């Protein structure tokens, strides 16, 4: 399989995973701001008025702040993420792939990597300076947690181009072959 085909297969898989995520999850754990029990009567009144005006469409809703994937100790590498999907990877192979991605960093064109993995090798990852999304395998009754989290992450990063770890393992990959857009 060519790298382009591998990328295509992975992106199709992630689209399917994302489609299986739970749309109600975000609503169930939506953040309230701030916790109402700590507010004065005046602030509660102001909030109630605000809620009513927004419900009637007379005031704009609070814009959703974007999820920035950069880390503070890594400066100036852009903010548009791309995903390195490394579920089920071998630890040593993943290290090798990460080294490959680092050597390809000129090809990222202002994007920053997010590593999605079930490999716990954080002593190594922490020196890469990338955001790591960990997908742990838990014992029963939480044995389906990994699948659930993987679906969520596929949905959460649905707008970011994804790459398989094989992209970091191949020799002589040209920037345009990564299809990062």
């Amino acid at each position: 399989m060519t790298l382009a085909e591998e990328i295509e297969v992975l992106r199709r898989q992630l689209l399917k995973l994302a489609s299986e995520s739970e749309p109600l999850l975000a609503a169930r754990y939506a953040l309230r701001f701030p916790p109402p029990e700590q507010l004065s009567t005046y602030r509660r009144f102001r909030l109630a008025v605000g809620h009513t005006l927004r419900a009637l469409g007379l005031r704009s809703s609070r814009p959703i702040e974007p999820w920035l994937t950069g880390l503070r100790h890594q400066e100036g590498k852009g903010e548009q993420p791309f995903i390195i999907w490394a579920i089920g990877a071998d630890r040593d192979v993943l290290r090798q792939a990460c080294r490959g991605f680092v050597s390809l960093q000129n090809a990222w064109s202002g994007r920053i990597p997010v590593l999605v993995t079930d490999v716990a090798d954080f002593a190594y990852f922490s020196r890469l300076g990338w955001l790591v999304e960990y997908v742990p395998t838990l014992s029963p009754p939480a044995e389906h947690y990994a699948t659930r989290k993987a679906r969520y992450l596929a949905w959460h990063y649905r707008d970011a181009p994804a790459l398989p770890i094989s992209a970091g393992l191949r020799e002589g990959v040209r920037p345009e072959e990564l299809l990062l857009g």
Partner: protein
Amino acid sequence: MAEVEKRDLPCVVLFNINGSGMGHLSTCLAYANRLQGRARPVLFSLASAIEMIHEMGFEADYFVSRFWSRATAWAWDRQLALRLGMLFERVRPEVVVFDGTWPYRGFLEAARAYGVPRLVWSNLTLYKMGMRKVPVRESGFDLIIQLGELGTSFSTQREVMPGRKVTIPPVTLLRDEAILDRGNARDSLGLDRDGRYALFSLGPGNLKDISGIGRGLIDEMKKHGYTVVWTRAPISASDPGLPDGVVSIAAYPLVRVMRAFDVFVGAAGYNTCCEVLQSGVPALFVPNTMVSDDQTGRAEMVAKAAPAVVSPCETLAQRTDAINRLLALQVRERATPLAFDLGGAERAADEILRLITSARCE
């Protein structure tokens, strides 16, 4: 333990923030260690040393620390609430413990939305003067565990729930029997049994650049014929360049092998001080003044009761003086057994299990 038996145990989720070092993670691991066999601890860690948690036999999930992430507080809290909620729905905790200074909005929201049966806030007591009051009500928690400093014994400040408040003795990650003696510790690290070794653990350096102080202390120690062993913190984003002759190790928990060393040089975080007390190794504390807890106050408290020296070590004169005093202690007081109550983790575990029982009786 068989999978079926483990499944039947009540689940306790332990949530640790990511401070300047591994302290909050160590506290949660200490609780997990004492809960093992009586509950099923699952850690949700903002510190990235996940493999260390797995190596100690516990399950864990990870989410990037708020101090590392460039996301806004609101966006980060929103993600935290959702990730925690996902976990809660699968592991079904009977108790959730937050270990840290300031319970995050996302944490509180996830606990509320899921309906966590019992909520615990575990926190230090020794903070620097003038620290901003945390605007979180203690009555929002069923139990508040205050981690006592040296000389603290177990006490109850408030009996009624919610908001029952207890203070526990210092917390140690490992039980005494899990700590290797000098010879075995040296063998496990591949150190010469007859050598003279100084252990350096100045923290991950993610908050404070300790490389200058570290280098100066290494030079001083080498002048006295000691081999310096530098611990690489699992969560540090980069390693300082080390001078020739310095041995670098990655050991966690450090206390397991601490008795391999003649002297210890390190920051004065809560867990480090407890480890020094537990191991009895003479110590030079270089307090980190950039963190919220009062490391200087804690180090001075320990130095009154145990073989320890406290110094900022910022100048050559301070470093020379500190090392001379440390080595004098080492000659006088090496391996003196110390008698302090360090059973805080056992008391915390008992309190957490009591909560489970009380929730089941309702």
